[in-house]
């Protein structure tokens, strides 16, 4: 039994969970402040300096509310659903490399060789939380929300899976640390400025990568139920969607689970397309623990920028109609992703570096 591995893994798990839950709480605050600023309002600015203690007040409110269970629900599944919404989103973080090394320990909890398959396998389970919540609530609107969510997430998972194939055609491995290592050597997937960046082959290859990036990002929007794809919880149509019958901390888990899914989604995008923890000119953790911390900071900064884009898009675009959503998923993104795979394959086969 390797105790050093066990202890370092435990420390990494606790630290990553603490950081991600912290980001999650402040993502809610950021959502409220940014949405307010976009709409020429001020947002929460009363609790603490500039409203920075607002997440604590929100959490205290959720925890102190009465934890009721309506009489007409299926109790077992009603209690199971919030956990199922939260757990897959957090579990996905286990395989993501969030930093280089710190004191010689690689900053990834589980460096498994099926990396991205694990991400998709676990992230897909997130739909069960929503479906079970909609079904067990035994009520019309949550049911409609659950049904919409099922079809939406299944449709967009196809484009999600197809969009990453060009990357793995290029790298030949599913391990996410390998994806990051490749991008350190050859430049980020969508902007290969590192290494021999004058090589036209790399820029030719960047075209399918950018297409992949756009399709993947949009599919992540749909997977996390964010506007413009927030049909499962369209409050103007469905009262509140799949969590209409939920209150107090059970609602809080759905609400925060959505934000954790956002953080996880951003982290996947950063790892696959935006170079992970790498930034040109900054050395990795083997040059001292200070640089190791800087690498971790860079990773979470990139995630934060993507979270801002998530929020920014939400407060800009209107919601799609349901048939438009399905048409977009099946007729456009699915085809684009499929053609994109062949384009990438042809470039790799006939235009060698």
């Amino acid at each position, binding site marked *: 039994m390797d105790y050093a591995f066990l202890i370092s893994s435990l420390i990494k798990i606790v630290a990553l969970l603490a950081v991600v839950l912290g980001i999650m709480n402040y993502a809610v605050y950021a959502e409220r402040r*940014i949405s*307010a*600023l*976009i*709409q*020429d*309002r*001020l947002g929460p600015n009363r609790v603490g300096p500039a409203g920075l203690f607002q997440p604590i007040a929100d959490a205290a409110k959720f925890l102190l509310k009465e934890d009721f269970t309506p009489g007409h629900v299926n109790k077992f599944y009603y209690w199971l659903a919030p956990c199922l919404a939260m757990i897959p989103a957090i579990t996905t973080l286990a395989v993501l490399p969030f930093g280089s090394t710190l004191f010689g320990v690689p900053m990834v909890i589980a460096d498994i060789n099926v990396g991205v398959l694990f991400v998709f396998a676990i992230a897909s389970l997130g739909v069960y939380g929503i479906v079970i919540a909609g079904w067990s609530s035994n009520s019309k609107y949550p049911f409609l929300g659950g049904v919409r969510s099922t079809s939406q997430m299944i449709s967009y998972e196809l484009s999600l899976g197809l969009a990453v194939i060009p990357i793995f055609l290029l790298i030949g491995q599913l391990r996410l640390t390998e994806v990051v290592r490749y991008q350190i050597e050859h430049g980020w997937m969508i902007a290969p400025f590192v290494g021999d960046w004058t090589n036209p082959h790399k820029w030719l290859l960047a075209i399918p990568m950018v297409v992949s990036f*756009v399709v993947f990002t949009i599919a992540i929007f749909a997977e996390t139920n964010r506007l413009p794809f927030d049909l499962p919880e369209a409050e103007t149509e469905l009262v509140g969607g799949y969590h209409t019958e939920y209150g107090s901390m059970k609602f809080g888990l759905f609400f925060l689970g959505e934000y954790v899914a956002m953080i996880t989604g951003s982290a996947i995008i950063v790892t696959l397309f935006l170079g992970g923890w790498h930034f040109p000119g900054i050395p990795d953790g083997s040059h001292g623990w200070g640089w190791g911390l800087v690498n971790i900071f860079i990773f979470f900064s990139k995630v934060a920028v993507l979270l801002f884009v998530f929020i*920014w*898009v939400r*407060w*800009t*675009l209107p919601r799609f109609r349901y048939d438009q959503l399905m048409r977009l998923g099946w007729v456009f993104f699915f085809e684009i992703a499929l053609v994109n795979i062949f384009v990438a394959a042809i470039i790799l086969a006939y235009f060698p570096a």
Partner: protein
Amino acid sequence: MAITVSRPKLNWSERLYLPAILSGMAITLKHFKNMLLGRTKVTMQYPEEKWDSQMPEHYRGAPALVRDQTGRIRCVACQLCEFICPPRAIKIIPGEIPTGDRFAKVEKFPHEFDIDMIRCIYCGLCEEVCPEQAIYLRKDYAITGFTRADMVHDKEKLLEIGGVMHGVVLKWNEKK
């Protein structure tokens, strides 16, 4: 007759949809930036900033009783305001001014004068109906209390809000 609305003919970039999204996002980013830099000024931070200076002349706030120049409560307890008050917020118990008093010829004064500020709708009918110009709507709007009893303004409170009014009605002067 049904009218067929012709669909606009979209060009290539409009059909692609992404340029429109980007221009929309540029607009929201502009709003975000202007708010962040403090260029847009819309919200008034209420308890710190108040709009007292911008309040219009005709603003109708809390009703109040006034005294005249000699310090007499102008109200003669005729109870017209009590009768006209639509939500029945006013309650008056009249009293008699004893003989020998300087204003004995006025005969009545309000022994008790309560306005329930939970009921008051700030309509201003009491001010309009008052033949003595004794009740006015002042500009106080932040009326708060911890209990229902706190929200009932009694005579002292109403006179405190009202203050002294130098008015035109001088019919109860001694000389007349």
